[in-house]
């Protein structure tokens, strides 16, 4: 019952961070005004150098694929030109939609023989451009792998194809009192294959872990068409922990063609407390106090003033709009445990200087509290023409310092920033408001975003907590990692994909890219 409720309140929420951006309609995307740090120059679909390779590959693919499994016309390919990071677009050489493992295998072998890049794609909700097509490559769309193969009630596992939606797993498990724990905001649409590629999180990670903690087995098609079975319905496997390596590898080491996840029993009860603060720092302090008291909440979220105002205006969650910050703390477990913990959490929040502490009276109010949080992105989309969602993680004790610096940067760049924060695990989502129609503003936004990520690294954190590097954070990888680490990543990449055909240009920058980035005037200035 509880998971069904958890599921419904997000139905109306938009999951795509940049959903507010105007849908691309013309034959060509709007010309960029200034060279973006992230985007390579777009390559035209009609580039004469692409025509023959496309025709040849189509001919070879059609030998073993039915007509509806190969898309090659420009208008058919437009839906694939971007993922959830809509600011970056590129048409692929072509798209394939296989139905069987045999077809996937032959596609991989053919592309490997012909040195054609392969970009795997799930639901296309990713926020870092991980599924951005390669102009000379194939998009391998796994949408037709959408079957739940088995739910093992006794062993509490589900074996599913990669195109199955995250939420569909919990729905299928619900009759057994079970659910799949990781719940990214996009869970209504995103696919489990994409979750594995990105190591997706959600609002319940602190207690229930990320995708990597909830996947038991994978079937992986390698670049040269070998099918590897990794893990099993067991709690460990002989040899290296390839599951840990593959989860979050962003489609660069292989294509996930089957996933076995563990299912958890639906908690008996969940309750949520909302606390308001007149000072963000106090709210941050309270998070540490709750954890120090030995309570691991199921969810612990923070929103700052601008995010509260936008969300309240949008969904009327009942948030105190005069607060500088609110905390939402959800506790779950057995009924008695929840009662005991809620009392303790309330006490801690009041001691920490909350101006108001409210416990949701019933599930209706609990869902309303959460709906405000989960709608924060689209809510902001209503008041700003565009927004750009960041995803850094920091050590929580650095929160006051980081928020102060973000607000200074926001002023410096003249771009408002609202903050939504998975406070329990230190994962921040600063949302930069901008207007893509104003010349140069997208580039300015990118630059500000980059500085925020670099700030996360500076305080001992990371440039991405759950959205992945994709195409988006390639420059900041050069800040987080040194040359030797990046080279080690490449060695690991080549252990799986010696020709570097899987999702090329994503995840790990080339040394050249990094030295170019370090030479940029804005960056040099930073380092002085």
């Amino acid at each position: 019952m509880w998971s069904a409720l958890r599921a419904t309140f997000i139905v109306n929420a938009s999951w795509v961070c940049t959903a507010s951006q105007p849908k691309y309609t013309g034959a060509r995307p709007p010309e960029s005004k200034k060279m973006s740090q992230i985007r390579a120059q777009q390559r035209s679909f009609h580039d004469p150098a692409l025509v023959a390779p496309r025709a040849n590959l189509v001919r070879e693919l059609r030998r073993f694929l039915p007509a509806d499994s190969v898309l090659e016309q420009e208008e058919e390919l437009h839906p694939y030109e971007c993922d959830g990071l809509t600011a970056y677009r590129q048409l692929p050489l072509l798209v394939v939609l296989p139905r069987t493992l045999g077809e996937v295998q032959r596609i991989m072998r053919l592309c490997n023989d012909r040195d054609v890049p392969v970009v795997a794609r799930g639901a296309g909700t990713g926020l870092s451009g991980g599924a951005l097509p390669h102009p000379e490559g194939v998009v391998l769309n796994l949408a037709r792998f959408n079957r739940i193969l088995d739910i093992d009630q006794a062993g509490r596992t589900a074996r599913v194809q990669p195109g199955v939606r995250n939420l569909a797993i919990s729905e299928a498990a619900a009759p057994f009192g079970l659910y799949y724990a990781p719940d990214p905001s996009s869970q209504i649409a995103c696919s489990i294959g994409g979750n594995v590629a990105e190591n997706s999180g959600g609002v319940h990670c602190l207690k229930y872990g990320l995708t990597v903690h909830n996947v038991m087995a994978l079937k992986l098609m390698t670049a040269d068409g070998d099918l590897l079975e990794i893990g099993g319905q067991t709690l460990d496997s002989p040899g290296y922990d390839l599951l840990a390596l593959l989860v979050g590898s962003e489609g660069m080491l292989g294509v996930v063609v089957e996933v076995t996840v563990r299912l958890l029993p639906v908690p008996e009860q969940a309750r949520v407390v909302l606390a308001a603060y007149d000072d963000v720092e106090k709210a941050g302090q309270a998070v540490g106090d709750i954890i120090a008291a030995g309570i691991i909440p199921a969810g612990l979220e923070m929103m700052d003033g601008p995010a509260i105002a936008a969300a309240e205006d949008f969904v009327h969650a009942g948030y105190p709009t005069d607060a500088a910050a609110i905390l939402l703390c959800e506790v779950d477990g057995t009924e008695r445990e929840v009662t005991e913990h809620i009392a303790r959490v309330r006490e801690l929040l009041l001691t920490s200087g909350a101006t108001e502490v409210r416990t949701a009276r019933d599930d209706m109010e609990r869902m309303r509290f959460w709906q405000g949080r989960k709608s924060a992105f689209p809510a902001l989309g209503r008041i700003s023409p565009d927004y750009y969602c960041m995803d850094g993680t920091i050590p929580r004790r650095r929160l006051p310092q980081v928020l102060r610096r973000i607000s200074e940067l926001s002023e410096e760049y003249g771009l408002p920033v609202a903050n939504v924060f998975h406070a329990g695990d230190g994962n921040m989502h600063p949302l930069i408001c901008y207007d893509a129609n104003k010349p140069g503003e997208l580039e300015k936004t990118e630059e500000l975003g980059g500085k925020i990520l670099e700030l996360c690294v500076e305080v001992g954190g990371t440039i991405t907590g759950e959205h992945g590097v994709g195409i988006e954070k390639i420059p900041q990888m050069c800040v987080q990692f040194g040359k030797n680490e990046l080279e080690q990543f490449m060695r690991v990449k080549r252990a799986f994909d010696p020709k570097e055909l899987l999702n090329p240009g994503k995840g790990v920058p080339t040394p050249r890219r990094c030295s170019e980035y370090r030479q940029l005037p804005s960056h040099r200035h930073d380092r002085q």
Partner: protein
Amino acid sequence: MIELMENDITKELQTRVLAAIQSGTRLEIRGSGSKRFLGRTLCGEPLIVTHHAGIVNYQPKELVITARCGTRLSTIETALAEQGQMLPFEPPHFGPGATIGGTIACGLSGPARPYAGSARDLVLGTRVLTGLGQVLRFGGEVMKNVAGYDLSRLMAGAYGTLGLLLDVSLKVMPRPAAQRTLAQEQSQPEAIRLMNAWAGTALPITATCHDGNRLFVRLAGAETAVDQAAQSIGGETVRHQEALWRGQIREQGHDFFAAGAPLWRLSIPSAAPPLDLPGIQLIEWGGALRWYRGELQSQTIRKAASEAGGHATLFRGGDRSAEIFHPLAPPLMAVHRRLKQAFDPNGLFNPGRLFAEL
């Protein structure tokens, strides 16, 4: 602080590794030696890492601790206990000098594994000295981090064959407010059924074990939750629960582990029926871990594990020069070889400890 700096021997270790690359010397990474009995027979010149020790950073409110590989597990556990925290995966020590480096390299987890996660689940970051003599940092001290491939968790359970773990950062958890262990007489099939049925409910279970006669269940959490769950599960309260879970199960002090025959560890799907092998089995992890002692041929035991959907490891005793871990399918072994090559192209570290080919 000065002491902490003195105990950083990264440079010294790096020099040793660079020299080994030059001379083609193979190295056996060695902490206290408490887990030397695991895996295949070791060869190579010892590279002692126990002096690279000390807790580098501990942030109780952030649930993270970073320590050098030579830090004793007992030192870490004491520091955590002082703040009411613990290593949730309850790693076995197998000796008083057990270090955190060896613990993560061997990737062993104790009774709480199915309920609180494994050694690798709790790894947040590592600093690694690779077979190329490079000191690399992966992951970090934050809970969520998806920048780059997760090479820190890959180190867990690699038995040092991919590199020397210099420092590890781990997620820690609060100790539960209350804990109680119940025991009831149960047959093995019934115990397996019960363990799986309970795991499908919201009961706050943190350990289970069946020793052939009795089924033990540990409950942990808020006082009221433990009370309530104890009533619904039933059985008599075990008085010395720490001695049971820590001494007998985790450290294998139980009589079951004392006999002379080789000890096998079978990791199989939790709901699989009792394995058709002669003699007794000790069951842990809600049914997912079956310990077996016997003189049967390894093929027989591996076959039983495979048929149940799992794998078997020769944990203690037997022929340590033969395969210890369950053989890998050829395409998977090929990936393992290439990964080993990617980290340790000269094959310096712990050659053959995991598999003869690595």
